[in-house]
């Protein structure tokens, strides 16, 4: 099925990307102000992957993501105020302040959670896929993971399991070229992680992860395939994080060179999207305005929400 796309969808796609960018920038700013509880891992630079994929999903499709999961969460429709409140450690947060940034989830939107143990989301995604397979409602689940996670045994076991059972699971590897300070060239035996699909007899494709339309194209095929019961696909989006890994490392100068960083900044996914989607300057302003207002509302919600009460420490342990 070719990917027809309307002007309206263009706007939505762009706005989603902007939403992620603004949320992340704001979150990072708030983190430095000491407003955020625990650490955060922002995904600035990787917006084309999250939005490219999630713009194709229905609300009853699922996603699972990682420690660097704000972008996917937002692209899947996660409620922003509750998400911001979670970063603030407020009782109105999505996880009632127990999970924090690394465990953002909004199950009502098909978001089965960020998972902080690297690689742990892939087995769980297989299970969500198994449930969908049982349900026979053509749902699909996408699991996002990093280049570092692709060296975990869980990747291998999950790819094999989903392949033999033909589960509707899309494995989306955001290869941002680093796992913490470790280069993918050092840690991974292959240049393109997508070649690993061959080990499981499923399609594997590498795509420019800075171009939302290219990501969409590739993701669409994988999703179609999965909905038809033909099993998983491995997609690798080559991308880059514009910030450091987490709390303390600089954007460049420690394990990434400034020139490398500059080079990637030139293909900022927002710039690419503006051009490819033909977003006019006026539209751009409109989208940014909408988003900034939303983020401001989210912050206001978070600021004004109460901390959890002492009793809450014992709640939500058992069903």
């Amino acid at each position, binding site marked *: 099925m070719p990917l027809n796309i309307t002007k309206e969808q263009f706007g939505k796609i762009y706005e989603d990307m902007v939403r992620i960018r603004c949320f992340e920038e704001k979150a990072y700013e708030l983190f430095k102000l000491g407003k955020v509880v625990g650490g955060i891992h922002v995904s600035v630079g990787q917006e084309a992957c999250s939005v490219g994929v999630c713009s194709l999903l229905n609300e009853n499709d699922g996603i699972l993501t990682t420690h660097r999961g704000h972008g996917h969460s937002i692209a899947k429709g996660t409620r922003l105020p509750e998400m911001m409140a979670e970063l603030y450690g407020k009782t109105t947060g999505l996880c009632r302040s127990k999970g924090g940034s690394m465990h953002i989830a909004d199950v009502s939107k098909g978001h089965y959670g960020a998972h902080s143990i690297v690689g742990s989301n892939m087995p769980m995604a297989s*299970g969500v896929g*198994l449930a969908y397979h049982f349900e026979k409602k053509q749902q699909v689940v996408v699991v996002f993971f990093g280049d570092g996670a692709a060296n975990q045994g869980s990747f291998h076991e999950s790819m094999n399991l989903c392949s033999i059972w033909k589960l509707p699971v899309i494995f989306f590897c955001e290869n941002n070229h680093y796992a913490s300070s470790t280069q993918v060239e050092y840690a991974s035996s292959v240049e393109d992680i997508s070649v690993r699909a061959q080990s499981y007899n499923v399609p594997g494709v590498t795509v420019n992860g800075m171009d939302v339309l290219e990501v969409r194209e590739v993701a669409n095929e994988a999703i179609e395939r999965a909905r038809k019961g033909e099993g998983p696909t491995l997609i690798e989006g080559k991308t880059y994080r514009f910030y450091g890994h987490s709390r303390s490392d600089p954007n460049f100068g420690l394990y990434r060179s400034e020139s490398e960083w500059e080079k990637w900044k030139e293909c900022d996914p927002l710039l690419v999207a503006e051009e490819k989607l033909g977003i006019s300057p006026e539209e751009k302003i409109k989208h940014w305005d909408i988003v900034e207002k939303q983020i401001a509302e989210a912050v206001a919600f978070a600021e004004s929400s109460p901390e959890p009460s002492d009793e809450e420490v014992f709640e939500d342990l058992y069903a």
Partner: protein
Amino acid sequence: MEITFAEALNQAMFEEMERDEKVFLMGEDVALSEISPATAGLSERFGTERVRNTPISELGFTGAAVGAAMAGYRPILDMRRIDFMMLSIDQIANQAAKLRYMLGGQVSIPLVIRAPEGGGIQNGPTHSQCLESWFLQVPGLKVVVPSGPKDAKGLLKTSIRDDNPVLFIEYRQLYSNKEDAQEGDYTIPFASASTKKEGQDITLIGLGSQVKNCMSAAEELEKIGISAEVIDPRTISPLDVDGLSASVVKTRNCVIAEEGHKHGGVGAEILASIQSKCFSSLKAPIERVAALDVPIPVQTKLEKLVLPNSEKIISAVKDVLNYS
């Protein structure tokens, strides 16, 4: 009707799968009936979609069970041996047990992990372990340790109906043990210790495979005029501290027997919990009988030396009663 421990498990799973189509079973070779009496006949009845063979990928399929549970199903995992769970414990202890709490109540994980374990059949160091003590330190996970067919059936049904992850320990040396069990549907609540024999002079708390050793010990002790009460906690998370303590308050002496190693075993937790409730009643320190703190050797005689048995329990009882 007399049924074996394995048949009890089989009946519980069979009946629960009949009752609730969300229940399904996964594990290595589970679809082959001849592999184990616990799963015999299930694939014939429910098909290989619901009785599902897995590759040898413990981490992967355990995580798949967690995911399926998160998405509304009620998986039962057959681990074949608890020793293999070391490969998948991340999905149990970091994920399944914490998910509900960590996601602020957004999900529940109705998952049962059936974990056959223990020694006595010359399976050697990596195929004979008792690891339930590890799981005490995992809030969010319930841990069930049945000692006989009747309890096994009711407790497994309770486990399957529980909306939380449950680790269900099956001592393999009990698989062929027989007992009268009522037919059809019944459940047994968690955190309800069961008094297997009443007595006055000492409480023997037995876990899993050691309940029968406590019973034989009690029989022997009876002959020399010592009246031992035998009590089985049945679940260790949650633990029926009050039930166990009441018995010890009555008898004023206690020995705890388990098949795991002594150092850091379940007995330590049981001892610690009840001593604070029974302190002033106790006439002697509580003794623990457990496996020696070495791996379980495959050699028959050495394995016997390592594992607890009724003689060791009797000797501990004598130590306690002779304490001064």
